[in-house]
C-alpha cells in the first residue's frame, strides 16, 4: 500500500475536527484520503491509514461511514474501510480492511508475545507431568500424543521442539485484527491476535490469546467473557460470563452461561455451560450443561455429563495427581461421583457415588452403579438402550465445524475395531470369571468392581450380539459393493487374515497399533519439519481407517472361522449373514422395547395434573406423542422391515439362496 504524508491543508482540517498528533509527520495516509473520515482522534507514534470511502453496517448501530472517530491510536495501521470509534486506547495493532472496532476501553500489545501459543496447560494430571503446550494448529490427536505418550522420548521431544519453533514464529510485539472483524462494547483486550471475521461483543477481558477464526467459520466472543492465556479455533462461540484461564478451545465449541475452566482443552464440538472444568481433556463432543458439575483431571469424548457430576483427583496425600479415563460415548448420571483413578469402558453409563477405584475399560456398553458402597458392573447393559443408538446417530449430524480445514479427525462408527476389540476382551474376562465362580456366589470381583455372578453369562450373550452384527455388517457391505462379475472370494482375496492387532482411540480418531507406530515414526523422522507436517502425518493415518479396519475384520474372520476370509465356505458365509440378520433384529427389538418404556404408564407420572386417567393420557400424548409416531421408533421399525430384504438381496447376489 502506498502511503504518503499528510498535506498542510489536511492537517489543518484534522485539527479543526478535534484531532491531535504527537508528530503529524508520523501519520501517513493513502489516496484518495478524505479528512472528513477522521474526527476527534489522537495519534501517537507511527500511524498508517488506508482509504475510507465506504459505509459499514453494524448490528444495533445501523449503517455508518467508515473511518476513525473519537479514538486514541498509538503505533497502529488501519486498513481500508475499517471503522474505529470510541476506542479509548488502541496500541500496536494492525487493523485489516473492513474491521469494526466500536466502544472499546483498551486494545493493546504491551510487548513481545506469542498470543497464547506455547502456554502449557496441565491437563489430565493437575499435579503436572503431562503438560500440553497449546498453539493455533493443535488437534485432539496431537494433544493425545503429547499427553499420553510422555514415555516416548523421541516423539515428545520432536513434538515439543516443532511446537516451540511454531510459537517462536508467531511471536510479535504487534497484534493483528483480521479483516471483517467486529469488536463492540469490549473492556480490555491485551496481547490478543484476532483472526478474520471474529465477532467480539461485550467481552470484559481478553488477555494473552489467539482467536483463530476463519472467514468461513468465525469465532464469536460474547458478553462478560473473561479469558486469559488461551487459543480459540474457528467456529467456536464463547459467551455469557465464561471464565477461562489457560485453556484451549478447538473448532465448533460452545462455552457459555458462566461456565468456568482452568488448564483445560476442549476439542471439536464440545459444549460447556454453567459448570466447571479443571485439567480436563475434553475430546470431541464432550458435553457438560449443568451447574454443580465439575469435570476434573479426566479424559472424555462423545460424553454427556449429568447434573452434579463430580470427581476427586486427590486424597490429600501427594496432591492432585490422579486421573480418570472415560472412553468414547460414556455418560455420567446426575450426582455421580468418581474417585480417580478409574477407567470406564466406551458407551458405558456411570451412576451413583463411587468411592473405590475401578478399571472397567474392557467392558464397553456397561452400566456401573453404586450399590451398598460397591461399584457394580452390569456388562453389556447399555448395548441395547435407546440412548446409545440415538447418541451414535446424532454425533455425525451435529458436527458444526464449517472451516474447510478441520484439525480433529473423528471416526464415528459405533462398532469399530477398538470397541469390538474391547468387547472381545471383556468376553474373555467374563468367560474366565464365570468358569471360576461358584453357583452359591452372588457376586464376583474384578479390578475394583463387583459383578453379579448371574450376569456373567448374560453379559457374554449380549456381547455376542454386538460381535455378530459387526462381523456380518462388514461382510454385507463388501458383498453389496462387488463390481459386476466380481465374486466375494475375489474381493476377500486382498484381505489377509492376520492376527488382529490392538486399536487406539486417539480422542476421536481410531487407529491400529501399527498405523499409529508408522505415524509416530513419520513424525519423529527428520523430514517432518513443522506442526503442519505433523498434522499431515496424523491425517494420513486417519485416512487409512477404512482399509485398516477391514484388515482387522479379516483377522477376526481368520480367528473365528480358522480360514482366510477368501476361503470362507458358502455355509459359513450364509451363517454370518443369517446371524447378522437375527442379531440386528434382536438388538433393534431390545432397543425398541427400551424406547417403549418411555411411553409406558410409569412415564405418565406428573402429566394431566388435577385430571383423571383419561386427561393424564391425553396430556401425555399431546406433549410426548405416541410410541408409534415417535421419529426414532419409526426409523428403527423401518430399519427392521428392511433388514430381512437386505440379507436376502445379498444372499441372492452371492447365489447362496
Amino acid at each position, binding site marked *: 500500500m502506498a502511503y504518503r504524508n499528510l498535506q498542510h491543508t489536511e492537517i489543518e482540517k484534522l485539527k479543526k475536527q478535534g484531532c491531535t498528533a504527537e508528530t503529524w509527520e508520523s501519520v501517513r495516509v493513502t489516496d484518495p484520503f478524505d479528512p472528513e473520515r477522521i474526527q476527534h482522534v489522537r495519534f501517537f507514534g507511527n500511524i498508517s491509514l488506508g482509504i475510507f470511502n465506504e459505509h459499514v453496517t453494524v448490528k444495533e448501530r445501523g449503517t455508518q461511514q467508515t473511518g476513525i472517530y473519537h479514538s486514541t491510536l498509538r503505533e497502529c495501521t488501519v486498513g481500508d474501510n475499517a471503522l474505529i470509534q470510541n476506542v479509548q486506547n488502541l496500541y500496536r495493532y494492525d487493523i485489516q480492511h473492513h474491521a469494526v472496532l466500536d466502544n472499546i476501553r483498551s486494545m493493546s500489545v504491551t510487548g513481545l508475545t506469542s498470543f497464547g501459543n506455547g502456554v502449557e496447560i496441565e491437563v489430565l494430571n493437575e499435579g503436572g507431568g503431562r503438560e500440553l503446550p497449546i498453539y493455533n494448529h493443535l488437534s485432539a490427536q496431537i494433544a493425545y500424543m503429547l499427553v499420553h505418550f510422555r514415555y516416548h522420548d523421541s516423539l515428545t521431544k520432536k513434538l515439543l521442539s516443532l511446537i516451540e519453533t511454531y510459537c517462536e514464529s508467531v511471536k510479535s510485539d504487534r497484534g493483528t485484527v483480521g479483516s471483517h472483524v467486529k469488536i463492540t462494547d469490549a473492556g480490555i483486550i491485551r496481547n490478543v491476535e484476532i483472526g478474520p471475521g471474529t465477532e467480539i461483543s461485550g467481552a470484559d477481558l481478553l488477555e494473552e490469546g489467539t482467536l483463530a477464526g476463519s472467514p468461513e467459520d468465525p469465532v464469536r466472543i460474547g458478553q462478560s467473557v473473561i479469558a486469559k492465556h488461551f487459543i480459540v479455533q474457528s467456529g467456536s462461540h464463547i459467551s455469557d460470563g465464561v471464565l477461562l484461564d489457560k485453556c484451549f478451545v478447538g473448532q465448533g465449541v460452545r462455552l457459555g452461561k458462566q461456565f468456568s475452566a482452568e488448564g483445560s482443552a476442549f476439542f471439536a464440538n464440545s459444549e460447556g455451560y454453567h459448570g466447571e472444568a479443571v485439567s480436563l481433556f475434553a475430546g470431541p463432543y464432550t458435553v457438560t450443561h449443568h451447574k454443580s458439575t465439575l469435570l476434573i483431571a479426566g479424559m472424555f469424548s462423545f460424553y454427556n455429563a449429568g447434573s452434579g457430576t463430580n470427581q476427586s483427583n486427590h486424597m490429600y496425600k501427594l496432591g492432585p495427581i490422579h486421573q480418570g479415563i472415560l472412553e468414547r460415548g460414556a455418560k455420567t448420571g446426575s450426582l455421580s461421583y468418581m474417585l480417580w483413578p478409574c477407567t470406564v469402558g466406551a458407551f458405558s453409563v456411570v451412576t451413583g457415588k463411587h468411592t473405590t477405584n475401578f478399571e472397567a475399560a474392557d467392558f464397553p456398553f456397561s452400566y456401573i452403579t453404586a450399590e451398598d458402597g460397591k461399584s457394580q458392573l452390569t456388562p453389556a*447393559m447399555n448395548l441395547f438402550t435407546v440412548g446409545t443408538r440415538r447418541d451414535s446417530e446424532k454425533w455425525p449430524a451435529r458436527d458444526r465445524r464449517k472451516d474447510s480445514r478441520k484439525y480433529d479427525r473423528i471416526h464415528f462408527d459405533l462398532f469399530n475395531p477398538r470397541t469390538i476389540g474391547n468387547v472381545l476382551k471383556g468376553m474373555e474376562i467374563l468367560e474366565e470369571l464365570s468358569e471360576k465362580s461358584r453357583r452359591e456366589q452372588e457376586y464376583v470381583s474384578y479390578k475394583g468392581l463387583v459383578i453379579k455372578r448371574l450376569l456373567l*453369562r448374560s453379559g457374554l450373550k449380549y456381547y455376542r450380539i454386538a460381535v455378530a452384527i459387526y462381523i456380518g455388517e462388514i461382510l454385507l457391505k463388501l458383498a453389496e459393493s462387488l463390481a459386476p462379475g466380481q465374486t466375494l472370494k475375489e474381493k476377500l482375496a486382498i484381505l489377509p487374515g492376520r492376527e488382529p492387532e490392538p486399536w487406539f482411540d486417539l480422542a476421536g480418531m481410531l487407529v491400529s497399533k501399527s498405523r499409529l507406530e508408522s505415524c509416530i515414526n513419520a513424525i519423529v523422522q527428520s523430514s517432518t519439519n513443522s506442526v503442519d507436517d505433523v498434522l499431515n502425518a496424523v491425517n494420513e493415518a486417519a485416512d487409512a481407517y477404512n482399509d485398516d479396519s477391514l484388515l482387522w475384520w479379516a483377522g477376526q474372520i481368520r480367528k473365528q472361522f480358522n480360514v482366510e476370509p477368501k476361503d470362507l465356505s458358502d455355509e459359513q458365509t450364509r451363517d454370518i449373514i443369517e446371524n447378522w440378520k437375527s442379531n440386528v433384529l*434382536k438388538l433393534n427389538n431390545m432397543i425398541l422395547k427400551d424406547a417403549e418404556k418411555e411411553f409406558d404408564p410409569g412415564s405418565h407420572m406428573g402429566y394431566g395434573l388435577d385430571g383423571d386417567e383419561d386427561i393424564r393420557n391425553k396430556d401425555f400424548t399431546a406433549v410426548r406423542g405416541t410410541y408409534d409416531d415417535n421419529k426414532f421408533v419409526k426409523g428403527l421399525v423401518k430399519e427392521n422391515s428392511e433388514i430381512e430384504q437386505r440379507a436376502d438381496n445379498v444372499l441372492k447376489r452371492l447365489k447362496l439362496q
Partner: protein
Amino acid sequence: MEKHEVQEKVKKVVANVLKLDPDEVVDDANFIFDLGADSMQSLELVAAFEEEFDIEMDEDKALAIQTVSDAVTFIASYL
C-alpha cells in the same frame, strides 16, 4: 415339568432376585410396576430363570415379558 412346578420355581426366583416376600409375587404381578424391577434386575431375572431351568432364552423376547404369568408360559415353552 408340570406348570405348577414352573410357577413355583418362577416365583421363588423372582422373590430371590428382587428381594421380595414370596407372597408378594402373584401371578398377574407386573415386574416393573408391581414388583419394582429396574432394567438391571430384568436382566438378572432372565439370567436367573435360565440358570434355574437350565435353558437359554431368546434375549429380546425374554426381556419383553411383563408379568409373572407371562414368564411362566414363556419358560414352559422351552421345557
